[in-house]
């Protein structure tokens, strides 16, 4: 290499500084993978299998490849059913054999922390991120994810929910996507027939933790509450009674929902929509791409959750996965590198471009993909989240809350003449007794 002139030297230093400064907006303060971390191998628990065929899994594979390229760290993914990730994590920590990092669902976070199964990330975050970077999140997950004043997981995905509607069925019926629950019934009636149904929701206990998300937009959208400020159950108010009655009426009175929903899981409802058995379901942004691929994006319309007031939609319930380091992780530093990369702009863009997952970091939105036409629908989700976003309830007894609510739903669906108010009074009493036990 030849000698540099003073001018050339200053120019290069200036370019380097600009590059570092620019990257600093997107990347954490520390550099990628310290020398000592390269060559390490970590075990990561996920609901996704990098060898799988869903778009989210395809995205994961790309992310893992890029991460290894960048850091030299190998991530071995162990795949578990999503509904069992939290509980298995607790068991593995208790058994002294946890993974190095794991996905953590926002609604199981507090139960996992009750079992003291995660590493406090405060020290890592302080070392790694600037204050500005710590605030660089599109939706403020602070209230639900800060527990005992500390942070235990980083949000990697944001998943708002909306009403997924078959656009082609709407066109055939000459109707528009419903804005109110009454309109949903009318659209549902027009869609129902010939083995097809207008509206479906999941009423089985098999994938228990996905039941509450049905009720939160219904009850909160009608001005009621599921839990009060002290986390006691109050889902027996007028709004809750109306919500349960509405779901029962969809089955028994309006006949736009099959009685079968009592035995259907969240995944089965999604599959029914993908296979053209139902015209409207409540679904999350994380499954948009897979559904669009199955039925054709031109046949899929997104609508805000209906309410009783056409001018104000029901809230979109925002859930999503975080990533944490289990207590007893053998490679916490390498695991942190993985988390850093996953919430970095590159991985978030891959997730969005390939799988349609919404990013959590505001700075990611500056990437070229988010300016493209293909990403237009993502802006719809983000606008809705900004307008009526509401983080999912996350209490340590979330599973029991779901169970009590789904038991009440099954009672109401099983018996058309059930006294809904009485059923909910009993359910609330049962849930609150459980809190005292």
């Amino acid at each position, binding site marked *: 290499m030849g000698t540099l002139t003073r001018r050339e030297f200053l120019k290069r230093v200036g370019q380097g500084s600009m590059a570092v400064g620019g990257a600093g907006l997107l990347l954490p303060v520390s550099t990628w993978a310290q020398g000592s971390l390269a060559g390490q191998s970590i075990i990561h628990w996920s609901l996704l299998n990098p060898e799988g065929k869903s778009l989210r899994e395809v995205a994961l594979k790309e992310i893992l490849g890029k991460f290894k390229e960048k850091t030299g760290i190998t991530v071995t993914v162990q795949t578990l059913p999503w509904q069992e990730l939290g509980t298995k994590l607790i068991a593995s920590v208790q058994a002294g054999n946890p993974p190095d990092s794991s996905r953590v669902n926002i609604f199981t976070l507090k*139960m996992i922390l009750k079992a003291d199964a995660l590493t406090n990330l405060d020290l890592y975050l302080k070392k790694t991120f600037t204050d500005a970077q710590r605030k660089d999140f599109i939706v403020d997950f602070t209230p639900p994810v800060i527990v005992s004043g500390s942070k235990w997981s980083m949000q990697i995905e944001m998943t708002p929910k909306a009403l997924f509607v078959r656009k082609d069925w709407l066109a055939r019926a000459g109707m528009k996507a419903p804005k109110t629950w009454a309109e949903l019934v009318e659209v549902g009636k027009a869609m129902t027939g010939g083995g097809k149904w207008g509206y479906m929701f999941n009423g*089985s*206990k*098999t994938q228990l933790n996905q039941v509450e998300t049905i009720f939160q937009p219904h009850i909160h959208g009608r001005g009621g509450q599921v839990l009060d400020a002290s986390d006691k159950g109050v889902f027996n108010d007028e709004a809750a009674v109306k919500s349960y009655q509405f779901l029962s009426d969809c089955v028994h009175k309006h006949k736009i929902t*099959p009685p*079968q929903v*009592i*035995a259907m*899981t969240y995944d089965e409802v999604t599959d029914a929509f993908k296979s053209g058995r139902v015209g409207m379901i409540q679904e999350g942004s994380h499954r948009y791409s897979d559904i669009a691929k199955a039925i054709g994006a031109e046949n899929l319309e997104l609508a805000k959750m209906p309410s009783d007031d056409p001018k104000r939609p029901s809230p979109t319930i925002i859930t999503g996965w975080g990533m944490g380091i289990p207590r007893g992780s053998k490679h916490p530093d390498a695991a942190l590198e993985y988390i850093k990369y996953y919430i970095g702009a590159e991985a978030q863009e891959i997730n969005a471009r390939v799988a349609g997952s919404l990013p959590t970091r505001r700075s990611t939105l500056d990437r070229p993909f988010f300016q493209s036409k293909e990403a237009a629908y993502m802006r719809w989700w983000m606008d809705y989240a900004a307008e009526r976003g509401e983080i999912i309830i996350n209490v340590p007894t979330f599973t029991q809350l779901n169970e009590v609510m789904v038991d009440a739903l*099954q009672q109401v669906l099983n018996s058309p003449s059930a006294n809904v108010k009485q059923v909910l009074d009993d359910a609330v009493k049962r849930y609150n007794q459980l809190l005292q036990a």
Partner: protein
Amino acid sequence: MSSATGSGPSSGPDTVATRWSRRLGEGLLGRPRGGRFDLFPYLLMLPGLLLVMFVTLYPIVFAVNYSLMRTQVFKQLAFVGLANYARLFADPRFQTNLVNSLFFVLVGVALTWTFGLALALLLRRQRWGNAILKTIVLIPWVTNQVVLALMWKWLLNGEFSPINYLLGLVNLPGLNPLISTAQALPALTIVNAWRATGFSLLLMLAGLSAIPVEVEEAAEIDGASRWKQLWYVIIPLLKPVSLACIITLTISFFNIIVLPMDLTGGGPLNSTEVLSLRLYREGFQYYNMGSASAITLVLVGLDLILAWAYYKLIRAETYYR
């Protein structure tokens, strides 16, 4: 044999090898030397014994300990005596779980044994395609229960079931048992019996092959009808095999989780929630270790009662004495 007579392995020079060989022979025969207690066979058994004790006794001690405590996940907060048991037995849901379990196990075992015997009687003289037929019956037993649950969920789904489609072709009403509180448990029980029939079939075929042909021929010469041969000759002679089959299935059915969890989730309205499923929920979904441990011990108690009954029945059995 051996050292007592001065013959056999100990008759040569008394080397270390021959001493060990002698001790090994004596130990395996379980004969005390010179009237003294011989520790050696027990030393040989020790590693296996410790392993078995660890994987059986430790969980029981763990469960007993936790069942007497108020817990927060795995943390023991306070000793509460028998309060967890008292709360459990006063809980109507637990009573439903118990009744569901008894129905699921007793009816399920009876069906499995009957299906297995019927198929074994059909297949034992069948020569053509015997291996293929046996394999077909065995497939559900060796298939992952999640797969079976998903398949039956689809088959029994009132909306999308191909069975209902076929029934509709002949103007028969469709099935929809999984949404009915009255039909869901029988449906789950039948599906599980279908799953386990392969196991029962194998045992019954083995039992039938051990029955001398002459016995059946003698009954036939005496004028016994086919039904009487079955009732008075074959079934009594199959008693030891049947008991082994019944007790194995009973314990297996009492502890099953995956099939009910994935087929019905315990619903509708807990009508298919068996004890093992409740135990899974208390232990690994709610992390109520106190309640989960109490349920575990109730299940262990039921299993022990059945093991005792099995032992008694075997002892009372007379045919092969």
